[in-house]
């Protein structure tokens, strides 16, 4: 076993022991969908306003984007900046294993948790509301992975440029809430105003959310949205690698 797999195993254990990270990554999407669907009966009734669709079905891909934004801007970001602040990365730097391996392990654990949380949510939506699920699986997978990569890049970048864990958390929430808006959490589907949508197209989570919605409803994401998420992933990732301080 390589150091990366050993560290990933250890980080996965720690992740599962942390109630907050556990809840937000694994349970939150499911809880949100089930609660919303039950609290607002109209959400789970087929509606002529939505072409005979259940409104909740429009919301499911947006919840996927919400999950990506929540895990990256809260759990992942706080773990990364705490590992630096508390000297966990520096201690690892005294061993033959590079501290970047621990960051790699964290990313692996977070992506796995995101995928598991998303699968759980889709299964719950199928069982509780009879949701048909995504209509274009390959496209959904591409959109999900690109969106996650973009937001992981943003998290790494914030961790790199903020001096301590408090500042990381502060900047993280400053980014998080507008990002949710652009992802359409309050205005799913076609409800987002046209002006906001034009901005949303160029935000990482907004583009990811659009791509996820297109794939969910059977289409392929627009090249613009794929390009925007890929560009965020690459640019923030490279900047983070260049700017990250290990101590």
């Amino acid at each position, binding site marked *: 076993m390589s150091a990366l797999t050993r560290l990933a195993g250890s980080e996965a254990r720690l992740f599962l022991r942390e109630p907050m990270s556990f809840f937000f990554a694994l349970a939150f999407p499911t809880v949100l969908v089930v609660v919303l669907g039950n609290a607002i009966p109209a959400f789970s009734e087929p509606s002529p306003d939505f072409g005979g669709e259940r409104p909740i079905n429009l919301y499911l891909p947006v919840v996927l984007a919400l999950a990506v934004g929540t895990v990256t801007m809260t759990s992942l970001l706080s773990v990364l900046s705490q590992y630096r602040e508390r000297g966990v990365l*520096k201690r690892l730097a*005294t061993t033959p294993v590079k501290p970047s391996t621990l960051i790699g392990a964290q990313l692996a654990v977070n992506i796995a948790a995101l995928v598991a949380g998303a699968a759980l949510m889709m299964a719950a939506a199928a069982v509780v509301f009879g949701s048909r699920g995504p209509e274009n699986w390959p496209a959904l997978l591409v959109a999900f992975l690109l969106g996650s990569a973009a937001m992981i890049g943003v998290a790494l970048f914030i961790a790199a440029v903020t001096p301590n864990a408090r500042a990381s958390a502060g900047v993280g929430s400053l980014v998080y809430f507008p990002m949710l808006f652009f992802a359409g959490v309050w205005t799913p589907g076609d409800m987002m105003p046209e002006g906001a949508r034009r901005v949303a197209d160029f935000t990482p989570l907004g583009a990811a959310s659009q791509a996820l919605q297109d794939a969910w409803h059977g289409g392929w994401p627009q090249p613009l949205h794929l390009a925007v998420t890929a560009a965020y992933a690459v640019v923030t990732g490279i900047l983070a690698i260049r700017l990250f301080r290990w101590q």
Partner: protein
Amino acid sequence: MTVIEVNGLTKRYGDRTVVDGVSFTVAEGEIFGILGENGAGKTTTVECISGLRTPDAGTISVFGLDTRGDREQLRRLIGVQLQESQLQDRLRVGEAMQLYSSFYPDPADWRELLAAVGLTEQVRMPYAKLSGGQKQRLSIALALIGNPRVAILDELTTGLDPRARRETWKLIRQIRDRGVTVLLVTHFMDEAERLCDRLAVFDGGRIVALDTPAALIANVGDVDGYRANLEDAFLALTGTGRDN
């Protein structure tokens, strides 16, 4: 045999020189102390030796290896206990030992090591629940897990109560008796005097004296009619150029 050789080590932050032309050698099997007030440049010096910071000038070799050279080989030879470094709150003692031992080709038996630092009963305890002294002892155990030939220990008794400090001293002697060379950073006079074979006294980023504790004290002679101790020697050597 020379284990560590530091030559003209210089480190600057901005236009402040915090380590200024430091040179010394550490012989195999020694407990070599670096003594100095806070801010004297002790941590910077040992972190350069550990390969964690890059010197602006000077050379450092450990067992003949340049510290800017083979990262992995160097880290197998050196075990480091950092001044400020924690572990993940929920990581258990035994898990940390097992994980870190997996990083080395020829690790020590981690259960034996835990017993040596008196943490056997805490093997399932998460890091956050350990007392200050227990955290320090775990830190020492992690520094020794790879069977290093040199242990670099930075201020490891700071914050410990007197009993825990003495137990830690005993542990350091045991480490040396296993054949490990020890480079010990401290600002405590009693610790330096009890433990170290030789001492480098740091002041403002320079070495102002380097000798055995006994010789450093003997150089001062009597102070106000009393036999000097290491603190008298330290005060006589440092603080030049300051107001008092």
